[in-house]
């Protein structure tokens, strides 16, 4: 059996409580259980996480680069969608 026989998995790691899982990278593994263990060894061995998700890469539906313009272009010139017209009171942090 060679490496290429193993499916690819996407790894999501939550770095601490209260934050959401963030994509960390991908890896090969024969099944979900071992994908989780490989992810533990590859992405959390320096204390980076408290929770891991693995998802088969084949289960991810991605937007196509060809559709980039219809997907994302209309958002570019609508400044009023951004809450940039508010005065931020002094002393407010984490905004």
């Amino acid at each position, binding site marked *: 059996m060679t490496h290429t026989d*193993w499916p690819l998995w996407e790894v999501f790691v939550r770095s601490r409580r209260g934050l959401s899982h963030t994509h960390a990278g991908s890896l090969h593994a024969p099944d979900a259980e*071992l994908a989780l263990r490989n992810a533990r*060894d590859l992405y959390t061995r320096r204390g980076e996480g408290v929770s891991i998700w693995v998802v088969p890469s084949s289960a991810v539906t991605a937007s196509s680069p060809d559709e980039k313009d219809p997907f994302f272009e209309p958002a570019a010139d609508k400044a009023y969608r951004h809450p940039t017209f508010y005065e931020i009171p002094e002393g407010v942090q984490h905004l």
Partner: protein
Amino acid sequence: MTTTPPADTVPTAAALALGDDALVLSHRLGEWAGHAPVLEEEVALANIALDLLGQARVLLSMAGDEDELAFLREERAFRNLQLVEQPGGDFAHTIARQLYFSVYQHLLYDRLASGDGPFAPLAGKAVKEAAYHRDHAEQWTLRLGDGTDESHTRMQRAVDALWRFTGEMFQPVEGIDGIDWPGLESAWREAVEYVLGRATLTVPDGPRSGAWRAGAGRQGLHTEPFGRMLAEMQHLHRSHPGATW
């Protein structure tokens, strides 16, 4: 790191026995670097090796100077089990060796951690590492045993070949008090037999006690492959005494 108890309360022979197990198995696992079947597994084995190396450093430091003990002792002065010095063989042999040892270490450290002896602080930390090593070995035993015809044959061959080295683990270690060794052995047998059964493997029936058993590593008698391993592990330090990075 864990707090080290004062030197005069440490049973040196026991620190050497446990420390040498960790050091030698760490080196054996490190031999997979650059040779593991897949990149992900190479990292997993290296991780386990580094856990064991960390344990070895604490334990050998309890017995003396860690570098001197690791790099300047002769073969007959090492007190590790013969099981851990066995060559990696194919991947199945490495996994069988990991299964036998990590179940043993997990059960032993769990007992040491709940006591108040000199090894309790180290064992309390290392038992979590051992639990992961055990899980890794069990997961692979299941997949190789209950995998293809080829992987099943190789895994059965590996558990059979290493079986005769397993009796030695339950010879009481001088300086480790409060362990019920026969109880440890039956817990180990139960755990290993359960995994082998689920993996559709046959529990080996060869001798692991009596005249035909292997294993006098705790007395300093080692098998032939160990000399080669030691030469490789020690040659740099011996060729360049006092070298630093």
